[in-house]
């Protein structure tokens, strides 16, 4: 199908998803408060999943499919169980991370959230990210702005890296296959930025750029569900989301540069290109 979604249908998608996400809040908070949470290790040892991850995803997927039988699901747990590579079609597709920041969740660091994004005709149109421990509910749908707990949010006006507080996933240094590029890029970005943070949740970090708490964020090698909802929230807040090369962002291979302004995004891309020129790990 290729028909455009109507405004009222878009609003319905948003309202139903919002209600379901809020419904999961008490369950997530229950898990967060437990002294010890049952968990097992999958894929990489630091990518933890908990029983709450599964329970929350079940509530979301059952609720969304019941309300919108024509829609499809791409979710972290569903993807882990089915072992198949997800594919995005034109059908309305919910892209779900039941708990983003599971390590924070387990250690009771208040940077963890439920993330639900919706793509139609391969375009992101709804994003909802809920952090119950910090009482933060970020939401957006196409053309209607971005909100935190019902209040409008907007990116900062920072245009240069020297003024910017950046976020970077320094934990990626742990992964051998992507270590080299991340050390070089971290060095280039952190040595030029006014400050660097790492929160351990991609979804929330995108929201912190949307609110202007951070000014830029670069990350690669994550999954669609890590980025989908945050990307639409950030663009509805006035920010820029593009591929690391500067080309169009692809949610299914979400290597991205996210920034408060297009000028800042260009600054970040230039630094990443400079990082790529570093040889033999010598820094000066």
């Amino acid at each position: 199908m290729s028909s455009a979604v109507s405004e009222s249908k878009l609003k319905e998608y948003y309202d139903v998803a919002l209600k379901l996400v809020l419904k999961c809040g008490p369950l997530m908070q229950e898990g967060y408060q437990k002294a010890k949470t049952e968990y097992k290790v999958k894929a990489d040892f630091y990518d933890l999943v908990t029983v709450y991850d599964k329970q929350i995803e079940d509530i979301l997927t059952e609720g969304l499919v019941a309300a919108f039988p024509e829609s499809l699901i791409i979710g972290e747990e569903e993807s882990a169980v089915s072992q198949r590579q997800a594919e995005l079609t034109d059908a309305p597709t919910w892209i779900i991370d039941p708990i983003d920041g599971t390590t924070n969740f387990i250690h009771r660091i208040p940077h963890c959230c439920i993330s639900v994004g919706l793509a139609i005709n391969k375009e992101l149109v709804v994003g909802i990210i809920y952090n119950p421990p910090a009482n933060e509910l970020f939401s957006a749908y196409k053309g209607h702005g971005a909100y935190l707990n019902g209040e409008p949010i907007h990116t900062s006006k920072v245009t240069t890296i020297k003024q910017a507080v950046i976020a970077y996933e320094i934990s990626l240094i742990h992964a051998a296959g992507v270590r080299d590029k991340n050390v070089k890029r971290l060095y280039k970005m952190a040595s030029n930025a006014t400050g660097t943070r790492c929160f351990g949740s991609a979804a929330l970090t995108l929201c912190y750029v949307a609110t202007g708490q951070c000014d830029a964020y670069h990350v690669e090698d994550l999954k669609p569900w890590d980025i989908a909802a945050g990307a639409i929230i950030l663009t509805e807040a006035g920010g820029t989301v593009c591929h690391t090369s500067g080309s169009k962002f692809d949610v299914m291979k979400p290597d991205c540069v996210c920034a408060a302004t297009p000028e800042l995004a260009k600054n970040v891309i230039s630094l990443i290109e400079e990082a790529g020129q570093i040889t033999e790990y010598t820094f000066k």
Partner: protein
Amino acid sequence: MAGVSQADIEELYNFIHPLAIKAGEILMEGYEMASKNVSIKGDFYDVVTDYDNKIEDFLMEKILARYPDHKFIGEEETAKNNNVSGELTNAPTWIIDPIDGTSNFIKQIPHVCVSIGLAINKQIVVGVINNPVQKKLFTTKLGQGAFCNGKPIHVSSCESVKDANVAYEVSLLHVHSVANKHIKRIYHVGLNARRLVAYSCVVDELCMVAAGNLDAFYIEDMYPWDCAAGSLLVKEAGGVVTHPFGGPFDIMKPDLICAGTEKLRKEIEDLLRKGDQEESVGGKPVQK
């Protein structure tokens, strides 16, 4: 001077506790303002705000009214005042950071703390840290445990860096004179640690180690007020706090590794040493 008694510690703690709560209220007032009057001092990213000064003035005034002979070591005080000391003596000395995480404060990133430590005979005996955005009040007295909102807190039992969540202040890469040292260390700690985080609030990171939210934290080139109260909190929560290369922690030059266990602390120390032996990241050892 005579040794400090438990009764003295209790009195001083009971005095400062409500003031730390009030200081947190002043901080929140500033945190929630849409715009702030920001001036720049020293390096361009080390900013001070009206509220930094307001909180410090409030605390100093209250302390001096009750204890006129007490001394201060604090971020703003070092710029102005008769009771300010450039060195730590045996006199009761308040070591205060009115807002730790000022760059977070300006951006409303929720890692901001008021930190109040008290040293007597050069030993920290009381620590009160208020993170009002997260509604957490950390308290500790020498020999009497560590608490958050009145409940006991304890460090994690993690003994291996491969399982550890470690905080490392990567913003230090912005300081060019130490950038090369830190990128090498970040490489080795990051390669081995399960996860790295960076919040740009030393006091909060110390509290998170004390509470077991983080397993370890390494930092250098900070000031006494960044680490005074938090270092006692970590120790009273059962953790270890040492100089990065294993010697005693020195409050006046507070380079430190703190961790839930000595075993983990040692592993991080070894990784820092390994980083320092490299000429560059992944490069050959320095010829010495």
